[in-house]
């Protein structure tokens, strides 16, 4: 990331703050770049040392979010948020697998998190029951719906291809209609496919929120 890109990212992430304050903060980072470069470092090196600009900028809104890690893992952990690059494979069992995943996820943040004197058994029971009785089935329903959606999208597109192929056997008048129908069907199939990709993305994001909420409940209670 260049100096310009870095400052742009910071500025964007600070939207909502008074303009003068944003300028002031950006001046600090510009100064940091200038001093670093005068010592022979490249813009990319300095940007890497500064750390993720969005994360750094967020800290101005909430000092509790201080990102102290160098690695992404540490940053994610310290910010208490899950980055969007989390894989589907890791998120689905976490949603459906109830308590086992929740407790193992908690172990990563350390045994010292959360006040030990608080009675969490109620919250634990709630999380387990919620996942066993409700979330499991909801998740299966949602993901099978998404799956059937993408299958029908492929079906529609395939029909379009078939229509195109068979249009060759018809007379010229029917052929034009068939070709248009075929292309229409293929486009419709593609549109459904794209829609499904977005729906899946939002669903995964929703799952992440849900898992976070579960973890929070598990560790901090109601």
């Amino acid at each position, binding site marked *: 990331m260049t100096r310009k890109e870095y400052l742009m990212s910071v500025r964007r992430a600070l939207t909502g703050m008074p303009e003068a304050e944003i300028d002031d*903060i950006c*001046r*600090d*980072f510009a*100064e*940091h770049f*200038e*001093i*670093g470069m*005068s010592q022979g470092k490249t813009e990319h090196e*300095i940007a890497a*040392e*500064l*750390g*993720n*600009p969005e*994360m*750094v900028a967020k*800290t*101005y809104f909430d*000092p509790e979010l*201080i*990102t*102290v*890690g*160098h690695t992404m893992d*540490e*940053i994610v*952990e*310290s910010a208490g948020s899950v980055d969007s690059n989390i894989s589907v494979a890791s998120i689905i069992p976490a949603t459906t697998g109830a308590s086992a995943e929740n407790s193992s996820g908690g172990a990563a*943040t*350390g045994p*010292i*998190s959360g006040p030990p004197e608080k009675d969490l058994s109620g919250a634990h029971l709630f999380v387990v029951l919620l996942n066993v009785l409700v979330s499991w089935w909801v998740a299966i329903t949602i993901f099978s719906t998404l799956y059937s959606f993408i299958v029908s999208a492929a079906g529609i597109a395939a029909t379009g291809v078939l229509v195109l192929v068979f249009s060759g056997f018809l007379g010229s008048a029917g052929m034009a209609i068939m070709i248009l129908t075929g292309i229409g069907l293929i486009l419709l199939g593609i549109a459904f496919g794209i829609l499904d990709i977005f729906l899946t993305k939002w669903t995964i994001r929703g799952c992440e929120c849900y898992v976070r909420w579960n973890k929070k409940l598990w560790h901090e209670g109601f």
Partner: protein
Amino acid sequence: MNVQFKKGVLDLCVLSMLKESDQYGYELANTLSEMIQISDGTVYPILRKLAQDGLVTTYLQESQSGPPRKYYKLTGLGRKTLTALQQEWQSFSRAVNHIVGGDAS
């Protein structure tokens, strides 16, 4: 190094580093990131918060190479807070060492 460990002591570290002499952001960021493995960018939000809380003030000073630099200086309140935090840290770390060392049981 454990992230949870670092979070609470960053204010104390920054204030301590300003105890002897005024410093500019780059210096503070570099020293801190080398010693306790934090990303450089972390320092600036902390400095800003300390300034807002009235623990440090800033002033610009020309440098031989490049543009003027923003220096950070402890205020009277900053010094008082530092002393209090230092004492708290001493007794806290002593107690933790005691427990971790196994002397408490």
